[in-house]
């Protein structure tokens, strides 16, 4: 307790002469009065419980301007002149008078609070005032004090400063230190502590050659230098960071944040100073010239959970994540239970409600993107791929299919339908069939040609606005099935009996799986040709080419009758067929040249067609763009970019200047942008596909009147869940249906809306768009354009720039512009699908590796933080600015008020907590108990330090030596304190201290879940030392995932991934890895500074029967059966591997008996040796006996305990 008496009063002008003077005065004052009740344990709890709510730190709820938590304020006269606390004079103190008042308007606490003080409590307060009303500042809020290590009573025992502090306390308690541990135990202890693995027998042998001080130091240094060190300490850090590989809550889907975990391991191995480690994780993105690694580091606070349930409000769960971040920051760096101040000012610690939200404001101003982590090697490979792709594009024409034929369009004479479809001849010689579509039909086309030697026919299936989705078929989705195609021919001039034309071969541009072209001429009506090949290529023109057995030719022309049977599927009818007829054409040019020529001709045809369809779009630059939530920014190219938060129902409102010409169609482009999730165009970041959007309703008003729409088309329309999502759904008056472009994120799409009546020029336009569905999915970047083209317009998949080029008068295009168009043609024309696919693969950005990071919001668009009444999301009150905890330390001048400033404040020398909390946590890791037992709570409710001077000395020493964790660990494990034997003195004996609070012995603690598993792997020789990468799925019992939502699977890893270190195990929050769960590992739902160490039958069942431990025992069995030496030697080896020490003669004899008994049972077939031994070679019964023995060893208490 002496440390409290000697600490400074609560002034923050530390070190000033004034403070020193005040201290002297106060100490004198304390000495003058009789000893009163203890402030910390007796007085403050009463004040805190009954007075602080209205007279405490919270200035919002403070009554009458009276504050009782600070002495200066309590002894100052109030406005009324009364003085609450008159030191030494309870009778004159207003506080005492009010305690005893009988008038309900006077008595304190007021009757309305229904709080009353007991007589004893009143007496305590009076006695405290009588004794001088001494306020003792809480030790943890005072900066660590410089103390020199005391002289040790026994000068021979201490090895370093730590021991001198410990020895002093031991002496005060009348205790003696224990003898040093034996070398085996010590070497194992420090190995488990520093790298989380036991030594191998070989390593141990090396140590035993020189187990003295120098040898031990070398042993320790070797462990500190091992890459296993970062894995061991990384796992502890992951407890604080609440790391997991899934999002949590119902869906609990996989996330990729393991690059952060690997960053932690690398940083710890490199002994990154802890202050730097802090800065990078809290604010790496804000460091000047932030590196990729520094951005990865910000994943620390992205380990919060993400709810992807369909019904949630994403901003509500964002708020929950924020409260988690505040609480985690408090526990991890400050050792404070900040979470208690979420709903109201902290009941015990001086953390006002408002300051809680000011702390939140630091953390709340970040966006939460996925950081794409392309490895430099992948980047280089990608560049090479792009070059190759460019070369392939240049050579595309050489792959263009050519016909060794001369084609001409046949003249359509007649178009008939057997089932009464209405057939109409169009100018281009195609036949359009309309009217109610019958389920089946036989269409007949009668055509003529004057060409001679016709030996092939092509059936084109064209698109038309009159067809569903423009066809080519007549069923709702536009597909068709051609059951059979039959041809007859007759002379045109003298019609005689038609002659049947025998088809030999059929080819088509596309063939639906199960419906190849050949089935159209196979003579069977139940088979046929269809064109739905997926990938959005259905609603395009297609064609089928049929080769004749022999040429057909009549002088004076030929009349062909083509019968199209549709008998397979209801309404799967061709809507607009056209017939081309061909004859062989000899061409002497080289093949490549002919292909290039054909490609060029096709391009010219496409160009001519495209020119006909294209219209002139004029981008409409909004005069204003606002929304219900995200910020809309108008860009130079007239597009609008959205950023900030989005909700499940966001409305965008745009106003445009009145267009100069009438508007016959409006185009909405949904545009990709690298700043958006998956490059956009949408902003969806959870539940649906990232980068998705859903335009539920679009309304345009012109001159104040709503525009009615005649039609709506889109370049691509796809719903991520459920039915269709076309542009028409965005103007159907139902906000639940809409336009979406799922599946093609990162690409540009457009929707074109045609008004029923052209919008007159000069009408002011206002556009309103509603986005949202069961997840937030607003549009991230878009542009609105208008056209005055008299025929309106249709959506096109051509990029907008190319559409503009097509508007240029023919002949005015530069070669480069024409090349752009040609390239687009070559990359989209169906004839080159195969080569295009290869190019697309080459152009694909390397993906798969992303990690979650924080990114500070733009300076001109900060996210406001509000105080939330009762801590509830739905009760935001006034806005608060970022600020730190005033009771802890001032915010240093000159620091930015952002996360970087917060991080610097945390690790500033003025901060009394961070170094102490960090040092204490290391102590806990090594001794099983912190110098402050409540590692997570250094506040008033936490435990006092057992060795306050040692804690302060370590904290200062830690900061002075560059916040080096390795140095700190080395310092502790080299101490005599750490090296003591852990033997427990029996109850009743003088040294009995079950919790080892006074450190009269070395640490003895059950190993953590991961260490138990890793130690077994090391003992068996199975341990894979591969570091890093995505989580692995080692074997665990079937049924662990049984209750997980959505039938989640556990795809058990094969090979070495079964035996990776435990921290690489995939962590699923809702279905934790069974063995870890059984041994008290956390589930990553909240920050954990201290694990339980339970001791349960389920643990016994795990070690005895779990599939993993059986695998380990069998591996040991194989090794031991193969090993040289006598049974005794091999028993020793097995023992040594598991427990790092040789067995005693007794133990050896017991083990041998067991081994021999089992061997006999295996040999007698009493037991199934093959089942116990598992896979492998070597003598079966021996392997089984060794496996049985290894299994027993793995179950020993000593195996899972650090002794």
């Amino acid at each position, binding site marked *: 307790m002496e440390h409290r008496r000697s600490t400074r009063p609560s002034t923050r002008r530390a070190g000033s002469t004034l403070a020193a003077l005040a201290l002297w005065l106060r100490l004198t004052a304390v000495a003058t009065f009789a000893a009163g009740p203890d402030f910390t344990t007796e007085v403050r*709890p009463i004040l805190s*419980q009954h007075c602080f709510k209205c007279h405490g730190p919270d200035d919002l709820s403070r009554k009458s301007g009276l504050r009782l938590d600070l002495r200066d304020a309590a002894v100052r006269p109030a406005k009324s002149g009364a003085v609450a606390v008159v030191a030494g004079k309870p009778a004159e103190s207003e506080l005492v008078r009010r305690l005893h008042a009988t008038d309900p308007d006077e008595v304190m606490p007021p009757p309305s609070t229904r709080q009353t003080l007991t007589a004893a409590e009143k007496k305590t307060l009076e006695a405290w005032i009588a004794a001088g009303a001494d306020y003792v500042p809480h030790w943890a809020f005072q900066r660590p004090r410089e103390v020199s290590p005391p002289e040790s009573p026994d000068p021979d025992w201490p090895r370093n400063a730590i021991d001198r502090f410990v020895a002093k306390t031991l002496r005060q308690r009348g205790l003696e230190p224990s003898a040093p541990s034996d070398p085996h135990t010590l070497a194992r202890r420090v190995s488990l502590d520093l790298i989380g693995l036991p030594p191998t027998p070989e390593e141990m042998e090396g140590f035993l050659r020189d187990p003295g001080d120098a040898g031990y130091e070398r042993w320790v240094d070797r462990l500190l230098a091992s890459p296993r060190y970062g894995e061991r300490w990384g796992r502890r850090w992951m407890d604080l960071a609440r790391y997991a590989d899934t999002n*949590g*809550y*119902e869906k*609990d889907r996989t996330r990729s944040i393991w690059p952060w975990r690997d960053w932690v391991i690398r940083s710890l191995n490199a002994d990154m100073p802890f202050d730097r480690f802090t800065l990078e994780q809290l604010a790496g993105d804000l460091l000047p010239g932030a590196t990729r690694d520094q951005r990865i580091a910000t994943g620390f606070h992205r380990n919060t*959970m993400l*709810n992807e*349930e369909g*019904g*949630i*409000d994403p901003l509500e769960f964002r708020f929950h994540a924020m409260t988690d971040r505040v609480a985690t920051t408090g*526990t991890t760096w400050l050792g*404070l*239970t900040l979470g208690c101040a979420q709903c109201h000012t902290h009941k015990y610690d001086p953390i006002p409600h408002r300051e809680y939200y000011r702390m939140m404001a630091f953390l709340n101003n970040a966006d939460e993107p996925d950081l794409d982590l392309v490895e430099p090697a992948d980047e280089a490979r990608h560049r090479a791929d792009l070059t190759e792709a460019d070369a392939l594009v240049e050579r595309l024409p050489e792959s263009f299919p050519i016909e060794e034929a001369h084609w001409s369009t046949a003249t359509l004479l007649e178009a008939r339908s057997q089932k009464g479809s209405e057939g109409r001849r169009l100018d281009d010689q195609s036949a359009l069939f309309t009217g109610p579509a019958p389920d089946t039909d036989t269409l007949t086309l009668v055509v003529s040609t004057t060409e001679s030697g016709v030996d092939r026919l092509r059936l084109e299936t064209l698109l038309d606005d009159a067809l569903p989705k423009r066809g080519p078929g007549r069923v709702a989705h536009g597909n068709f099935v051609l059951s059979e195609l039959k041809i007859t021919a007759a002379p045109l001039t003298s019609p005689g009996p038609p002659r049947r034309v025998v088809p030999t071969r059929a080819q088509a541009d596309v063939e639906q799986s199960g419906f190849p072209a050949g089935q159209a001429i196979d003579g069977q009506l139940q088979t046929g040709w269809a064109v739905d090949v997926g990938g959005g290529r259905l609603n395009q023109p297609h064609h089928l080419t049929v080769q004749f057995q022999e040429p057909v030719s009549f002088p004076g022309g030929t009349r062909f009758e083509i019968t199209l049977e549709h008998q397979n599927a209801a309404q799967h009818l061709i809507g607009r067929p056209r017939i081309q007829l061909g004859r062989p054409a000899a061409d002497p040019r080289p093949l490549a040249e002919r292909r290039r020529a054909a490609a060029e001709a096709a391009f010219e045809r496409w160009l001519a067609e495209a020119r006909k369809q294209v219209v002139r779009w004029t981008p409409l630059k909004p005069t204003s763009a606002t929304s219900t939530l995200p910020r809309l920014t108008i860009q130079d190219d007239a597009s609008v970019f959205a950023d900030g938060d989005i909700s499940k129902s966001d409305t965008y409102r745009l106003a445009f200047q009145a267009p100069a010409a009438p508007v016959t169609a409006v185009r909405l482009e949904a545009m990709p942008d690298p700043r958006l999730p998956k490059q956009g165009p949408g902003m969806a970041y959870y539940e649906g596909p990232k980068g998705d959007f859903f335009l539920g309703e679009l309304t345009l008003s012109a001159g104040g009147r709503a525009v009615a729409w005649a039609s709506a088309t889109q370049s691509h329309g796809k719903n991520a869940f*459920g*039915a269709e999502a076309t542009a028409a759904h965005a103007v159907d008056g139902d906000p*639940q*249906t*809409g336009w979406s472009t799922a599946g093609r994120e990162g690409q540009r799409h457009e929707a074109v809306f045609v008004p029923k009546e052209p919008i007159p020029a000069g009408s002011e336009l206002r556009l309103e768009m509603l986005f949202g*569905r069961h997840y937030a999915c607003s549009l991230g970047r878009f542009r609105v354009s208008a056209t005055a083209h008299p025929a309106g317009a249709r959506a096109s998949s051509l990029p907008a720039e190319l559409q503009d080029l097509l508007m240029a008068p023919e002949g005015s295009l530069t070669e480069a512009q024409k090349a752009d168009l040609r390239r687009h043609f070559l990359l989209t024309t169906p004839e080159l699908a195969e080569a295009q696919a290869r190019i697309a693969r080459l152009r694909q950005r390397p993906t798969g590796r992303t990690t979650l990071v924080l990114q500070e919001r733009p300076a001109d668009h900060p996210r406001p933080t509000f105080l939330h009444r009762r801590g509830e999301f739905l009760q935001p009150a006034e806005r608060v600015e970022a600020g730190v905890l005033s009771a802890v330390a001032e915010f240093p001048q000159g620091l930015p008020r952002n996360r970087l400033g917060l991080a610097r404040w945390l690790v500033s020398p003025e901060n009394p907590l961070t170094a102490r909390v960090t040092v204490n946590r290391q102590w806990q890791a090594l001794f099983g108990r912190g110098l402050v037992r409540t590692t997570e709570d250094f*506040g008033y*409710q*936490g435990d006092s330090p057992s060795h306050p001077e040692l804690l302060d000395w370590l904290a200062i020493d830690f900061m002075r030596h560059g916040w080096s964790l390795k140095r700190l660990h080395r310092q502790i494990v080299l101490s005599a304190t750490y090296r003591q034997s*852990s*033997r427990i003195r029996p109850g009743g004996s003088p040294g009995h201290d079950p919790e080892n609070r006074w450190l009269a012995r070395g640490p003895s603690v059950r190993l953590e879940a991961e260490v138990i598993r890793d130690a077994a792997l090391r003992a068996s020789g199975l341990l894979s030392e591969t570091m890093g990468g995505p989580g692995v799925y080692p074997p665990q*019992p079937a*049924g662990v995932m*049984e*209750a*997980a*939502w*959505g039938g989640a699977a556990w795809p058990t890893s094969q090979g070495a991934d079964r035996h990776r270190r435990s921290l690489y195990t995939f962590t699923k*929050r*809702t279905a934790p890895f*069974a063995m870890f*769960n059984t041994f*008290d590992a956390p*589930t990553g739902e909240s920050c954990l500074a201290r694990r*339980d*160490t*339970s*001791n349960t*039958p*389920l*643990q*016994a*069942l*795990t070690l*005895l029967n779990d599939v993993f431990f059986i695998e380990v025992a069998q591996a040991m069995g194989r090794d031991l059966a193969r090993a040289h030496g006598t049974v005794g030697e091999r028993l020793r080896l097995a023992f040594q591997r598991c427990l790092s020490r040789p067995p005693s003669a007794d133990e050896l004899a017991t*083990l041998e008996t*067991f081994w021999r*008994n*089992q061997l006999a049972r295996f040999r007698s077939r009493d*037991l199934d*040796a093959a*089942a116990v031994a598992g896979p492998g070679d070597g003598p079966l019964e021996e392997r089984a006996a060794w496996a049985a023995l290894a299994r*027993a060893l793995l179950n020993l208490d*000593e195996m899972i*305990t650090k002794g």
Partner: protein
Amino acid sequence: MNPLPFPPDHVGRRQFLRECGVGLGKIALAGLLTDGLRARASTPPGTGPGLAPKSPHFAGTARRVIHLFMGGAPSQLELFDSKPALAKLEGRPLPPSVIGGQRYAFIRPDAAVLGPRFKFARHGQSGTEISEVLPHLAKIVDDICLVRSVRTDQFNHAPAQIFFNTGFSQPGRPSLGSWVLYGLGSESQNLPAFVVMSTAGGLSGGAALWSSGFLPTVHTGVRLRNQGPPILNVDHPPGIDGRLQRDTLDLVADLNRRRLGEVGDPEIATRIASYEMAFRLQTSAPELMDLRGESRETLAMYGADPDKPSFARACLLARRMIERGVRFVNLYHEGWDAHSDVVGNVRSNAATTDKASAALVTDLRQRGLLDDTLVIWGGEFGRTPMVESNPALGRSQGRDHHPQAYSMWLAGGGIRAGVSHGATDELGFHVVENPVHVHDLQATILHCLGFDHEKLTFHHAGRDYRLTDVHGQVVRAILA
């Protein structure tokens, strides 16, 4: 107020317990030091250290709980809460005055009303009105207390399920079963004291539903699985027979005892005891699962196939667990989330659960176990009087999540039988009589077990936590 988490006499108490031959883990301590709870060190320990039986604050009416959790949220309007007025309003939106500012998961609050889909009739002496899809429950209405006025704060599955079980919407706090175990300890030496089973689909709330939260981890629910070994690793590995297992345990115990003698760590004694309990569990778990001893009548009453995992079999197993000293059984049936086709959903889930739920109550009553076993039946929230239909999601004729008013029933353990409690308005939208918040139910359940819910606390992260947070009123009207 005592700000110290450990009363000063705890070391002495621990020594005392140790000397009684009960090895106690370090963590076990916390469990013994509950405010006002007294360890009964003279009775044998439960399965696992830290779980010695304890006396509650006062003599409770229930000693055990079976919680039949209907995951996904059943439609009270099709099961328990008859609302003829809805039929008249069908197709029309509710007036905004009724809806208030309520947020919904999927629908807009002004969606059209959907009338009740099933007929209701009065049953039993109590004349309790129940839907035609629950014919079995109808026969035992006089044994249950139907609460038609339950309210919750959450309207999404995972948060609401976690809220019902832990009193808080985020994962991380102790579940009801953990609190009960923490307060009462275990009376079973051979089975876990808090057992969790689930049939049908995976659970939205996941492992958080039976987590011990910040309570010592020994209070976590143990899952009893449908397939394979009922408890993870309770079966011998392939090739290991009973004798080898015994030999192994003897060898381990022998070496552990020597170690104990050498280093004197009492944790080793606890571990030795844990291994013995594990060995007993290996026998008792299969015995529990073996339904061959159950009569044909019993199996028929539940509708359980002894070899096929089902809700019915799980109900029968729950009774067997209760008989064997299990303190808290949590049985999850997920699947009531009727966003589309509420008729088909209710019909199929009722067919799965009605018979067995009623049989469980009847069976417990016949065996004299109902008096001190509390049975709870219900979900995480209710369903809207409004229809859910969403063409973009392919949904029609469903009901959305409704937190303001829903129904549950309780039976046995000191709950008044044959009564209905609370009522909703004629649209089934709001509670208009005797509202029972989830925190109130939690307080009531703890009360039945003998706890003052305001005093069953655990000090964690700077303050004392309780299941009911700072809320909860015991619903005295439903107590017998």
